[in-house]
C-alpha cells in the first residue's frame, strides 16, 4: 500500500461531499444570483434605467450615506470597546466582552422599535424627563440605531486583532525599543490594526446598508426611503409591473454596493500578513478601567437594554399615551398577541429556524471539510461573500429563480435562509476545524478506525462546542429574520417576524411591542448562557 495517499474510500467520501457542497451552493446562491443579474440586464436593456429616475437614485444615495455615517460611528464605538476589554482590562472584562455582543442578538427592527419607545415622543425618557431624541424617526435615527446595532461586528474583529495580531507584547517591544506611547501606537499598533479596522468597517457598512428593519421602522414613517425599504414597498405593497423591474434593478444595485465594499476591503487588506496565532498576556490591571468600564455599561444600557425594557413596558401598558406605571399595566396585549393566529406563524418560525440551523451547520461543516486544503482560500472568500449579499437582493434573486415553482411555500423561505446563514455556520465550523490538529485524525486512523468512525468518535466530539454555537446562532438569526421573510412570504407562510412587522405597519403599537418581546426575549435568554459557555477561554 502506498503511503501518503488517501484510500479509495476516503476519496469517494471526499468527492461525494464536494459534489453535495457544490450542488447546494449552486441551488441556493449560484442559480438565484445568476437569474437576478440576467433579469437586471434585461430590465436595463428594456429602459429599466428609469428605475433610478423614479425615486430609485434617492434611495441608493440615502442607503449609502446613512451606511457610511453609521460605519464611522460604529468604528468609534467598536474600537473603543475593544481597547477597553483587550488593553485596559481590569475587573469585569469577561462580562463586558459578552455584553458588547448583546446588541447583535436583538433583531434590528425590534431595536429600532425599542428606541422609539425609549427615546421617541411618548417614550420612556419623554414620560420621565420630557426628553426626546430629535430626529429619531428619520435619517439621524437610522444612523444612530444602525451604528449601535452593527458596532458589535467592529468590536469582534478589532478585539480579536488586538488580542492576537497587535498583541500587547509588540507594543511593549516598541516601548522598550525607546518609542513613546504615541509613536508605538502610530508605528506598530495602528499598522497592525489597519486590516481589522478596514475589515470591521466593511462588515459594518454592509450590515448597515443591508439592514431593512431599522429603516422600516425609522425611515418609512419619515418618508425617507432606502434601497431595502423601497424594495419592500415596491414588492410587497405594489402590484405595478413597472415596480417589479425597479425592484430587480435596486436589488442588483444593492448587491453591487455590498460586494464592492467587501471587495475593496479585501483588496486593501490582502497585502497585510495574516495574523499569527499567539497567546496574549492578560494585563489585568485591576481598577484602572473601572471608570471607562462603567461608561461602556452605561452605553450598552442606553442603546440595547433600555429600548428592550421600553418595549416590554409598552407591551404591558393598556394604551399608548398612558404612562407606563404599574397602575396602567395589563397582560391584555400579550393575551391578544398570543391569541388568534399567532401559533401558526410561531410554529412555522421555529420549524424554519430549526431546519435552517441544522442544514446550515451541516453544510457549513461540509464546506469547511472540503475546503481545508488547496482551493481553501477561494472557497473561504466565496463563503464570506455570501454573508455580505444583502438579504433584500438574495430574496429577490431566490424569488426570480425558484418563485415559479415554489411561490408561497416555506421551502422558498428556507432556500433564502440557507443562502444567507450558510456562511455564518461555515465560519464557526472552519474556525474549529482549522484548530483541529490533523495528527488527532491520523492517530484515530492508525488506531484502526475508518473515516466515518473517526468523524463520529473524534472529529464531531471535538467540534461539538463550535457546532452547537453555530447552530444556535443560525437558529436565532433565522428566527429573527425579517428582511427576506417579508419579501418571500405568502398566504399561509408568514413567520412570526413578518406578523410583527405587519401589525406594526397597521399601527397597533402595544400589540406590536408584545409580539416583538415574544419574538426576541425567549431566544436571547436561551442563547446567551450557551454563548458565554462557548466563548474563547
Amino acid at each position, binding site marked *: 500500500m502506498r503511503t501518503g495517499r488517501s484510500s479509495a474510500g476516503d476519496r469517494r467520501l471526499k468527492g461525494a461531499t464536494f459534489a453535495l457542497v457544490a450542488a447546494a451552493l449552486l441551488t441556493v446562491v449560484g442559480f438565484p444570483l445568476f437569474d437576478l443579474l440576467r433579469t437586471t440586464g434585461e430590465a436595463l436593456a428594456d429602459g429599466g434605467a428609469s428605475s433610478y429616475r423614479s425615486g430609485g437614485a434617492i434611495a441608493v444615495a440615502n442607503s449609502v450615506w446613512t451606511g457610511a455615517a453609521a460605519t464611522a460611528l460604529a468604528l468609534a464605538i467598536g474600537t473603543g470597546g475593544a481597547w477597553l476589554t483587550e488593553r485596559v482590562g481590569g475587573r469585569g472584562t469577561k462580562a463586558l466582552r459578552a455584553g458588547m455582543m448583546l446588541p447583535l442578538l436583538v433583531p434590528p427592527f425590534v431595536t429600532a422599535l425599542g428606541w422609539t419607545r425609549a427615546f421617541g415622543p411618548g417614550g420612556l425618557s419623554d414620560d420621565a424627563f420630557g426628553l426626546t431624541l430629535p430626529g429619531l424617526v428619520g435619517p439621524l435615527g437610522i444612523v444612530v440605531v444602525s451604528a449601535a446595532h452593527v458596532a458589535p461586528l467592529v468590536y469582534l474583529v478589532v478585539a480579536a486583532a488586538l488580542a492576537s*495580531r497587535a*498583541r500587547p*507584547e*509588540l507594543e*511593549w*517591544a*516598541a*516601548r*522598550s*525599543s*525607546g*518609542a*513613546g*506611547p504615541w*509613536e*508605538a501606537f502610530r*508605528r*506598530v499598533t495602528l*499598522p*497592525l490594526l489597519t486590516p481589522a479596522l478596514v475589515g470591521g468597517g466593511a462588515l459594518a457598512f454592509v450590515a448597515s446598508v443591508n439592514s431593512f428593519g431599522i429603516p422600516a421602522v425609522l425611515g418609512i414613517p419619515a418618508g425617507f426611503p432606502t434601497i431595502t425599504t423601497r424594495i419592500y414597498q415596491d414588492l410587497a405593497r405594489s402590484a405595478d409591473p413597472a415596480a417589479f423591474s425597479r425592484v430587480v434593478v435596486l436589488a442588483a444595485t444593492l448587491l453591487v454596493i455590498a460586494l464592492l465594499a467587501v471587495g475593496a476591503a479585501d483588496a486593501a487588506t490582502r497585502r*497585510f*500578513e*495574516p*495574523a*499569527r496565532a*499567539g*497567546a496574549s498576556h492578560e*494585563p*489585568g*490591571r*485591576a481598577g484602572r478601567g473601572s471608570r471607562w468600564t462603567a461608561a461602556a455599561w452605561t452605553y450598552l444600557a442606553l442603546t440595547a437594554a433600555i429600548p428592550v425594557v421600553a418595549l416590554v413596558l409598552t407591551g404591558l401598558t393598556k394604551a399608548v399615551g398612558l404612562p407606563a406605571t404599574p397602575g396602567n399595566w395589563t397582560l391584555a396585549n400579550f393575551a391578544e398577541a398570543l391569541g388568534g393566529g399567532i401559533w401558526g406563524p410561531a410554529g412555522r418560525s421555529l420549524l424554519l429556524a430549526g431546519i435552517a440551523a441544522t442544514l446550515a451547520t451541516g453544510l457549513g461543516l461540509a464546506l469547511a471539510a472540503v475546503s481545508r486544503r488547496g482551493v481553501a482560500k477561494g472557497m473561504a472568500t466565496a463563503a464570506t461573500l455570501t454573508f455580505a449579499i444583502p438579504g433584500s437582493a438574495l430574496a429577490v434573486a431566490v424569488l426570480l429563480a425558484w418563485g415559479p415553482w415554489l411561490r408561497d411555500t416555506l421551502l422558498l423561505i428556507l432556500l433564502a435562509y440557507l443562502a444567507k446563514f450558510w456562511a455564518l455556520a461555515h465560519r464557526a465550523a472552519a474556525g474549529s476545524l482549522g484548530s483541529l490538529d490533523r495528527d488527532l485524525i491520523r492517530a484515530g486512523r492508525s488506531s484502526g478506525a475508518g473515516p466515518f468512525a473517526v468523524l463520529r468518535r473524534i472529529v464531531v466530539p471535538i467540534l461539538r462546542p463550535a457546532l452547537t454555537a453555530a447552530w444556535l446562532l443560525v437558529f436565532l438569526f433565522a428566527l429573527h429574520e425579517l428582511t427576506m421573510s417579508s419579501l418571500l412570504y405568502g398566504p399561509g407562510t408568514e413567520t412570526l417576524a413578518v406578523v410583527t412587522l405587519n401589525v406594526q405597519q397597521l399601527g397597533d403599537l402595544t400589540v406590536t411591542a408584545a409580539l416583538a418581546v415574544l419574538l426576541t426575549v425567549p431566544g436571547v435568554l436561551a442563547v446567551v448562557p450557551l454563548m458565554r459557555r462557548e466563548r474563547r477561554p
Partner: protein
Amino acid sequence: MTALLLDGARVSYGHAEILAGIDLSAEPGEVVALLGPSGSGKTTLLFAVAGFVPLSTGRIAVAGRDVSGPGVHEPPERRDVAFVFQSYALWPHLDALETVAFPLRAAGRDPDAAREEAGRLLRAVGMAGLEGRRPAEMSGGQQQRVGLARALARHAAVYLFDEPTAHLDAATRRAVQAEVAARRADTGAAAVYATHDADEALAVAGRVALIRDGRLVQVGSPAEAYEQPVDRWAAELTGPVSVLEIEVRGGIAVVGSEPSTLAEPFPDDGHHVVAVRPDWAHLGGPLTAVAVESWFRGPHTDVRLDTPGGAIVVRSPGRVMLRPGERVNWTLRRVWPLEA
C-alpha cells in the same frame, strides 16, 4: 556603579502576589541567570524591570537612576533597558532591517544611519542577506536573532532575556548563547537571563538566582548553586541529584553499615539527609549496592543503584555494562547536607 538594583520589589494583582519582595543586583558586565520553573515569577520580574508592569512596593534602579518606586514609574522607553522576548515579539509588518532600525530611529538617528547600523547588527548575529525578510518568512532561530539584534540596537545598560532559547533547537540555542556572551563582553552591559533550564543557567551566568513562587530562594555563583543548594527543591532545580540518608562519624560517611571516606571533611557527626550529585560518587570501592538501571549517555553512563541509604544515580565515564540486580561496589566522595 550598579547596573541594576531591585530593592524589595513586589508585584501583586488584587490579592495574588506574583513577586514578593525581590532583592537583586547586577554589576556592569555581569550576567545573572534567573532560574525557576514556569509560573515562578521570572517573566513578571523582567516585566517589572522593563516597566511593563508597575511595582506594588519596593524600588528598581537602572544605572543608578530610580525607574520604579514610590511615586516613580518610568515608561519602558525611558529606561536604559533592552528586552528579548520569549515569543520573539517581532512586528509582522516590518522586515528584519526595519525592525532592528526601529530602536535606532526612536533614539533619534536619521533613517540612513539607522539602517546602516541595523545592517551591521544583523550581520553580527548571522543574519546577513536576510535583511528583507518578514517574521512570517523566518525560522524560529532567525526570528530570535532579529529579536536579539533589536535589543542590541538599544545600546542599553541592562539586557533582559526572557527564555530566549526556549523554542530553539539545541544547535541554535548554543549559537544564541554564544552570541549573548560575546555581546555582553563587547558592551559591558549587565544582563538578566530568565530560564527554566539548569544547564543553560549555569553555563551563561556569572551568578544564578533561584526563584520560587515569586521569592528568591538562593543567589550565588553557578558553583555555589550546584554544590551548595539551600534545600532539596533548589538541589533538584539546579541539576541531577540523589538524596541519601547517611550517618557521619569523624568525617567518614556510613551508608547502612559500610564506611566511605569523604574527599572533604564533613563537620557535623550524626544522621544526615544529604544531596549527592552524580559526579560526587563513582563505581568501585568500599560500599555495596544493587544495580537497578543504567543509561548510556555518550561521554558517560548514569547508573542507578539501590543502597541501604536510598536510591542514588552515579555517573561513570564511558560505557558501563551492568545487569539489573547485579551487586556492585561504589564510593561516596562528597555530600551536601539538606535541611530536613
